């Protein structure tokens, strides 16, 4: 039996595997490079990078929920200058495409960070994290208003000479509208879903568990919502979709691919199992062999 082809091409990027870590769950790759060679991944996706270094939120920042977790890291990162000087050069040597996740509080900040990343020549693509409050628009999240989102993507697009992915927030009434806005703004592809806003209360201490009160819900708990959103979005856009939300196994990944995703990202599962990404890749391959599937494209979006 012929070995199935797991490689995928997305927005001009050729990835050896459809599986990559999700932003914020893999640092800048160094920690997991102790567990396996990073070239086993489709790409490495960095944690969010901002213009200035950020300390992030007070702790506790993470807590477990049923089949999921909440995080309120608060975009802690050493700032774009440091990342370009100290993280990307190392990553660039790992023989794997690097997707840099970018966050900001103003349009100008996004533009500036994307310009620097793009010009550094060290990244294969940028992923815009638009689940951040827009301080100039009264704190409304960039990713929840179609007009603001389209304008942001359009502006960033101008300074971005590499593929530009836009990461959609699930905290919206109709994610298709945001997907279409990002596409209209010039996104090369979409990644979804980011975390859902949640809260957990410590009833003994009578206060929220997270110092930030609310946090982002991720993990298997959100998978059904994520699959549904990927399915909805893939039906209406022409650009590729990368799916995520609760993926822990090859079977989970195949659900997203059948729903229309060209590739998948794995976040929380890296914490449960640091070898999650290569194991999921192997499980997808096994499934393809069992079912006689030759390529990812063969099953992508096969759900009517």
């Amino acid at each position, binding site marked *: 039996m012929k070995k199935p082809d797991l490689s995928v091409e997305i927005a001009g990027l050729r990835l050896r595997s459809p599986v990559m870590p999700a932003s914020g769950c893999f640092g800048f790759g160094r920690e997991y490079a102790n567990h396996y060679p990073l070239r086993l991944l489709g790409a490495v996706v960095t944690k969010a990078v901002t213009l200035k270094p950020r300390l992030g939120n007070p702790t506790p920042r*993470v807590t477990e929920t049923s089949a999921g977790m909440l995080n309120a890291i608060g975009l802690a990162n050493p700032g774009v200058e440091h990342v370009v000087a100290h993280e990307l050069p190392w990553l660039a040597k790992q023989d794997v495409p690097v997707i840099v996740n970018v966050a900001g509080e103003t349009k100008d900040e996004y533009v500036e960070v994307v310009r620097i990343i793009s010009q550094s020549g060290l990244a294969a693509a940028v992923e815009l994290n638009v689940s951040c409050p827009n301080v100039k628009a009264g704190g409304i999240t960039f990713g929840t208003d179609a007009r603001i989102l389209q304008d942001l993507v359009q502006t960033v697009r101008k300074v971005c000479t590499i593929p530009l992915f836009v990461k959609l927030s699930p905290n919206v009434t109709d994610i298709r509208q945001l997907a279409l806005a990002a596409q209209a703004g010039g996104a090369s592809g979409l990644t979804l879903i980011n975390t859902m806003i949640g809260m957990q209360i410590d009833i003994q201490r009578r206060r929220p568990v997270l110092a930030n009160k609310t946090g982002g819900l991720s*993990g298997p708990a959100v998978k059904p919502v994520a699959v549904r959103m990927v399915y909805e979005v893939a039906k209406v856009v022409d650009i590729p979709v990368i799916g995520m939300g609760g993926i822990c196994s090859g079977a989970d990944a195949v659900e997203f691919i059948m729903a229309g995703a060209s590739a998948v990202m794995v976040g929380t*599962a890296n914490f449960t199992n640091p070898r999650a990404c290569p194991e999921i890749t192997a499980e997808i391959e096994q499934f393809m062999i069992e079912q006689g599937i030759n390529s990812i494209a063969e099953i992508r979006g096969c759900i009517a």
Partner: protein
Amino acid sequence: MKVTVMNTAQIARKTWQLTFTGSFPYGEVQPGQFVMIRIGSGTEHVLRRPISIAAVKEDRLTIVFRVVGKGTQWLSERKPGDGLDVLGPLGKGYPLPHTGAGVLIVGGGIGVPPLYLLAERVRPLVQQLDLALGFQTAADSFWIDQFASLGNLVPAADDGSFGKKGTVIDAIKLLSEGRSPKSRPWDYVYACGPLPMLKAVKQHFAGHKVQGYVSLEERMACGVGACCGCVCQTADRTAAKRICADGPVFDWNEVAL
């Protein structure tokens, strides 16, 4: 790593010890390091739980933990022969003292376990090892004999139910008073326990010429330094340290307590 539970035992109120064997880099363990233990095997528990390494011997590793929630409850229900999925050893442990140094080890409550391995490693290096271990009450205490066999132990209980009545600070004072004039002053203070205790110990030695190390705790997700879930701040509060990767043991002047 997949290891196998050898035995478990309840050793104090809500407190259990568990020993596992199987493939694990036992030889690499430094005192103060921890393991991340997977809870269950399905999707209900996505986060591993950090537990300090209390003792290690050939191909056996022992942890001591208090049941405070679902994860530690599950752990307490393990039976000999059960499999366990552990990651480790993780983090940076206690730097050992120079030979012949004066050493004080201070522990409180469920912060005591990793100090056992530390005491074992320190013992051969020094003339005298002083230990101040505090518990809320006698029912919470464990491994008292083992610790006593390694050094000069003063236990304390908040309610006076055993040892010195009071906190570890009272125990430390008692140790100080009891020292012979000839004995070497403490060069190193190693502490592990609740944050208020760590602060009090550091405070107690303010102005003294000692090298102090504390082990910090925070809720963790990755346990390997990738998620920035478990940070503390540097003493000047300008930068973050990841407790799981840069710690859990820090020079007490390095971090904001």
